[in-house]
């Protein structure tokens, strides 16, 4: 197995894990869904601002620069 395949395999595993957590959260309600997790982080004004700054950086980094 090359490093390239291994790297993509880890990324795929992480994506699957995210989908799995989302599925469990949506069906069992004992774990946050991504939406509830986001809302939890934005409960505090500072959390909302920090997340928004991260969102802004992502937009600039990926789409403008």
């Amino acid at each position, binding site marked *: 197995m090359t490093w390239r395949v291994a*790297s993509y395999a880890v990324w795929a595993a992480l994506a699957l894990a995210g989908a799995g957590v989302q599925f469990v959260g949506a069906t069992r309600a*004992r774990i946050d869904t991504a939406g509830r997790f986001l809302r939890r982080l934005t409960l505090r004004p500072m959390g*909302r601002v920090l997340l928004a700054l991260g969102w802004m950086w992502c937009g600039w980094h990926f789409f403008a620069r």
Partner: protein
Amino acid sequence: MLGGMAAHGRGTAVALTVSGAYSFLVAATTPFTVAADAAVAAPLAVASVLLAVAWRGDLAHGGASGLRTGSSTAPPVALPWFVLVGLVVGWEVVCFVALPRSLHPTLSSMYDAVSRCRPAKAVIVFGWLALGRQLVRR
């Protein structure tokens, strides 16, 4: 009440249409150009204003409204998401410091490959705009 729901539905449809059209506009720009800068700066400016308004509202009300689960049982846990975010950041760092990039793809390099397809880039921009809307709404 039905009128209010209809108005809400219309508002959502308009928001989706505008966001979709804007996503294709952003996707049509090329990074490192004035057009791309302007297309991305516009939603950043709107978000900044809405955040400032939300910040003032939060301060006036002594903090944002709580997370309402509508249940008396134990609230759902967020630990899996923190672990997942930590793993993603960790693997991103590992790939970032390892070279060559073709063997150790980062999120940015994978995005660069995907964004050559304009519709795919538009979908990603749409997701970014939707996430921003979630962050600034009260």
